[in-house]
């Protein structure tokens, strides 16, 4: 790891004063589970690290009329153990439970989950987020078994690594970001973006901004289902998060969002249309899953993910209306 200076401010204001508009120059440090490894690989070489875990304003889970406010320094473990979330937002709790391992869940934070960089192995080997070498895209003809099957006509082929992202998009959450000049709220579905060039990030946050908290509406039946190779210490191959507004047993509106299949959480609006006005049965869920993947364009090695994504949708829908 390259050397750097370190600060651990106690207030948000002090932290924001230390951030820089120049990309990569100053890095906020939360759980460190992505950042420290990237620094060891020399993928980021910041001049200054700002530890933001001491900042009280960035912590806590509280409920209000609109739903739930979750501070960005809340850990996955905190999410899983929170009674309020277990009752109202099981899709978020399940998404947190799916994260790697107990150690990572104790360390990793909500803000870090949203802002972590893609796990694309070309990116991690230093070929950039678009995985280019001599103006040639490496993914289409390369090792692409874990890459995108949707919205993958270039230049981005990686999958969004966020575990909470699909659930937050489905739930209609809002991400609040702050900088020294103020704060702004970004709808979760606008927070994740597909970069068109190497200077763009995968999230709509500037280098001098921090995620301070997220706001999550309650009142839906919601669930997350994750398909993985291994039961622990593994990234999902496909996940589905669903949020259903119900009138009795009839869906009035649905949001189905897939994870790990596209450069952003993928909004399966075709599935939403199938579900509106219907009750959730195995047939309806299967039909919605089928429609959701109609536009899938798998690469040379990842056609298997299409069926996994369908299964994830079906199981998430059935889980959401269970009990």
């Amino acid at each position, binding site marked *: 790891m390259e050397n750097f200076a370190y600060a651990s401010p106690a207030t948000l204001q002090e932290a924001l004063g230390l951030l820089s508009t120049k990309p990569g120059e100053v890095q906020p440090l939360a759980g460190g589970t992505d950042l*420290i490894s990237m620094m060891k690989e020399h993928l980021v070489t910041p001049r200054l*690290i700002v530890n933001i875990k001491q900042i009280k304003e960035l912590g806590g889970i509280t409920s209000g009329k609109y739903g739930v406010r979750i501070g960005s320094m809340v850990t996955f473990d905190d999410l899983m153990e929170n009674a309020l979330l277990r009752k109202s937002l099981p899709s978020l709790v399940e998404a947190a439970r799916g994260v790697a391992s107990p150690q990572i869940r104790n360390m990793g934070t909500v803000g870090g989950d949203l802002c972590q960089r893609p796990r694309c192995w070309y990116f991690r080997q230093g070929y950039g987020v678009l995985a280019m070498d001599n103006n040639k895209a490496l993914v289409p003809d390369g090792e692409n078994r874990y890459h995108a099957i949707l919205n993958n006509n270039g230049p981005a082929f990686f999958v969004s690594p966020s575990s909470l992202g699909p659930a937050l998009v489905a739930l209609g959450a809002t991400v609040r970001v702050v900088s020294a000049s103020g704060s702004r709220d970004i709808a979760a579905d606008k927070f994740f973006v597909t970069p068109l060039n190497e200077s763009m990030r995968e999230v709509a946050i500037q280098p001098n901004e921090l995620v301070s908290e997220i706001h999550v509406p309650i009142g839906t039946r919601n669930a997350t289902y994750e398909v993985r190779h291994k039961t*622990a210490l593994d990234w999902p191959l496909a996940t589905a998060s669903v949020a259903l507004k119900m009138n009795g047993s009839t869906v009035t509106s649905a949001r189905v969002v897939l994870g790990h299949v596209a450069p952003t959480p993928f909004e399966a609006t075709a599935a939403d249309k199938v579900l509106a006005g219907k009750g959730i049965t195995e047939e309806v869920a299967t039909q919605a899953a089928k429609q959701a993947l109609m536009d899938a364009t798998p690469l040379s090695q990842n056609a298997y993910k299409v069926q996994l994504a369908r299964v994830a949708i079906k199981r998430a829908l059935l889980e959401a209306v269970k009990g």
Partner: protein
Amino acid sequence: MKSKNPPGTSRRGFIRGVGITSTAVGAVVLEKTALAEPFAVAKTIGPDAAPITLKVNGKPVNIIVEPRVTLLDAMRNQIGLTGAKRVCDRGTCGACTVMIDGKVNYSCTVLAIDAQGRDIQTIEGLAPAGKLHPVSAAFVSQDGQQCGYCTPGFVMAAKGFLDRNPDPSYEQVEHGLGGNLCRCGTYVGVRKAVLEAAKEMKGSRHA
């Protein structure tokens, strides 16, 4: 921190040191004190080595580290605690597992400077000298290791798991130890050991 301060006598280091040695209550109290003090104004430390104080196995330890040094490397290279192992060094294999504020963490992925004011427990502090903690004893009796390199990490992960799940099922053990890898493949012995330790520890609260 002003660089003209000689190592070990900086204001921050001094106050932190006093905070630790003058109270047995530990991390929470210390942090509250630190936040209330005017010196908490955002100061940058480093990139040169700076004095820090860590609370390891209940005792304050003063070391001088660059901000880039991980907790694992500080423990192994400077504090002389070599139980936690450096294997993947990327927060994946679990050989470096220690408890921080009662929760299992990968010490290879925590900066030593960031672990200040927190309660760090390592395998060395698990039982009094010459005695085995019930988890360690169960690893011996159930043959929960082969080459043994992953064992300290597994024992700490098991301790952290049992603290929160004193009466686990086999499946819960499987999932609860999911953050540690053993390339000798001793998982079956490890899981049996955790179940035996759970039985052994039931009724009595071990530290």
